[in-house]
């Protein structure tokens, strides 16, 4: 430091005044930052707490630059479910009362950016600076739309296939075979047809009740797009930016669930099962095979009391459906988004907070508490993360293969129609072909020229 001290003081004071946009005095300036987190339970509280910690760090950083700013962070997560949260954010933003930071699904980026509810985070932070430059590039890609980075990934997850080891053993698997299962899935040696066969064995031998051989997620979610992918389906045409309805893959995907119901391994009325019931059933071995999310680990081992997870459960990618398809898993990272505010400074501070909250240390707190996966390879260097068996194994086995659903303004509708079609096929209201025909009709009507049918 070559400048003399008084000079620095003056410069600092000038900067503070400039920054406080005419606050009038040198007193601390208050900035209130509201953080709303969707789909967030008690276990995910670091989504908000990390912003609080970041605020403290930023206050100190700014203080060193002579800027006396008092950042107050106010978190809120008790919205009910996703739809209540999204409704609240959108209506609040429309009325100019948006929270500064929202934690939400990356799928909201497309519609919300088009509506001007959010601002690109890349307009406010240096994308080459740490920790942003250390985040997995595929996750950064997922947080972008139209080539612009709108948000920063808040966590990563993935949606694995689960096997109850005891049941597998009783239908004839050896320990070695169970250990090799994830690899066989990855190499397409174990496919969805094998899933049905094993599930049927478990039901026929009376190891699990009828309808509990294969026990899927009970409500709509990205998980079902995985089965579309298992049969070779693609969701987005990169060249034209249009969504794709692959009729062949869609039919096979619906047919798989029809077959599962007909074989008696999945209940016809399975969809709509209460989540609480679902968790307790899969965590106690009532189901032979099922699929879920990496964050379920926290629920299984804590609330549901599954004590020896690794001894009792095997997990893998979602197996391929046929030769055209691929074993896969979908990650649906939540992202930190900065909303449009009247004050440039508030947006800048919000973006800065999000950046700091994305540092490996802070993100690891969230990852471990909520059993999510990290957002940066550097987290492997943090003991807390590296020593957590679930985080490290799931990262290795799943995250590297994960892809995400496309950011597209009409994807919400696409997904909803696809799921509705699945429901009509699953519940036996329609055959797979008829259900897909209805889906095609609805998609064409609702999406128009944003859709390619194959």
């Amino acid at each position, binding site marked *: 430091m070559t400048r003399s001290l008084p000079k620095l003081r003056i410069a600092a004071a000038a900067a503070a005044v400039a920054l406080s946009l005419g606050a009038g005095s040198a007193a601390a300036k208050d900035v209130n930052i509201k953080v709303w987190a969707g789909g967030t339970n008690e276990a995910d509280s670091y989504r908000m707490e990390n912003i609080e910690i970041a605020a403290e760090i930023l206050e100190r950083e700014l203080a060193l630059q002579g800027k006396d700013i008092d950042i107050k962070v106010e978190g*809120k997560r*008790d*919205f*009910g*479910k996703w739809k209540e949260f999204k409704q609240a954010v959108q*209506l*609040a933003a429309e009325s100019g*009362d948006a929270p500064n930071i929202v934690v939400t699904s990356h799928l909201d980026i497309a519609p919300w950016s088009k509506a001007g509810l959010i601002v690109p985070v890349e307009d406010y932070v240096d994308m080459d600076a740490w920790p942003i430059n250390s985040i997995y590039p595929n996750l950064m890609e997922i947080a972008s739309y139209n080539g612009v980075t709108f948000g920063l990934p808040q966590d990563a997850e993935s949606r694995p296939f689960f096997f109850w080891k005891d049941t597998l053993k009783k239908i004839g698997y050896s320990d070695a075979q169970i250990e090799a299962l994830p690899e066989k899935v990855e190499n397409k040696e174990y496919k969805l047809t094998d899933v049905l066969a094993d599930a049927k064995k478990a039901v026929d031998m009376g190891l699990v009740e009828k309808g509990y051989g294969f026990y899927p997620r009970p409500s709509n979610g990205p998980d079902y797009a995985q089965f579309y992918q298992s049969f070779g389906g693609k969701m987005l045409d990169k060249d034209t930016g249009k969504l794709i309805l692959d009729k062949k893959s869609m039919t096979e995907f619906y047919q798989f669930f029809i077959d599962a119901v007909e074989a008696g391994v999945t209940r016809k009325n399975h969809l709509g099962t*209460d*989540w609480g019931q679902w968790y307790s059933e899969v965590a106690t071995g009532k189901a032979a095979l099922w699929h879920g999310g990496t964050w379920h680990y926290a629920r299984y081992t804590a609330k549901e009391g599954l004590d020896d997870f690794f001894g009792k459960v095997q997990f893998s990618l979602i197996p391929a459906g046929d030769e055209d398809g691929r074993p896969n898993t979908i990650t649906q990272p939540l992202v930190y988004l900065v909303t449009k505010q009247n004050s440039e400074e508030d947006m800048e501070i919000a973006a800065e907070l999000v950046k700091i909250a994305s540092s490996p240390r802070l993100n690891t707190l969230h990852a471990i508490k909520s059993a999510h996966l990290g957002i940066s390879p550097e987290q492997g260097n943090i003991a807390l993360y590296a020593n957590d068996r679930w985080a490290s194994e799931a990262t290795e086995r799943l995250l590297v293969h994960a892809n995400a659903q496309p950011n597209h303004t009409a994807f919400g509708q696409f997904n909803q129609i696809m799921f509705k079609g699945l429901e009509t096929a699953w519940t036996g209201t329609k055959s797979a072909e008829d259900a897909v025909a209805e889906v095609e009709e609805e998609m064409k009507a609702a999406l128009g020229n944003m859709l390619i049918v194959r």
Partner: protein
Amino acid sequence: MKSRNFSSLPIIILLALVSLPLVTMYVFLFVDTISDAPAGSLIPTSFTLEHWRFLWEEPKVGETSIWPVTLNTFIFAATTSSIVMTVSLMAGYALSRLNMPFRRFMLAGLITLHAFPTITLIIAIFLILQLLGLYNTLLGVIIVKTALELPFGIWIMKGFYDTVPWEIEMAGVQDGASRFTVWWKLVLPQVQPGLVALGVFSFLSAWSEFILPQVLSPSGSGQVLSTYLNSLILDDTRPDFNMFKSVGLFYAMPVIFIYLTFQKKLMNIYGGGSKG
């Protein structure tokens, strides 16, 4: 009606049987809040106040304490009820007694509005609140709830005014008092019972309201007990029915108290019905 020819026992038994589901729900709504039962059993084995901990525990990060929410609910219900009473008191009198242009038209409009699909207008209502800067405020929800209650309130008050003998007013007017004084001094005391009934009715209606605050005031400052309880139920890491019920009972207590106090009046006014 009592009758010597028939015994009422068979009817009591029949009614008791069909009432069983409701009675079961009421009994366990109370019992479950102060006891624990082992899994898979219905009979409580131990007494506990644990389920009421939301009353004294500090809320966790991102959650709201129940007390400000309760206060909000009270403000919401009390304000709505007072505005509905005041406005209905005036408009009901005008429609019942005062000559004015378009009276018939207004009456017909009132009846139409009474049977109107209010909740389906919520998108447009949101827009208006937003333009007025009242979205996400308790005041906005209060005004909207008031507007939706008014057609019913005015209609009820008009009914009460209709029963007040016309002679009372004539006497007042002949003594040289103005219409306003007559209304204030002579007519108002006559409709007081009706006013109380309407006040209680609209208080309960606002106290129970769910969709309006849910959509029009989702964030903390305007949260009320219905939305608080609902988001608690939806939070799927805690399917703790005993706790839900405790919050529910806490929320329902004023309703039950009001019911016991104003039983007769309420039975009458609900005959007019405002919800299906």
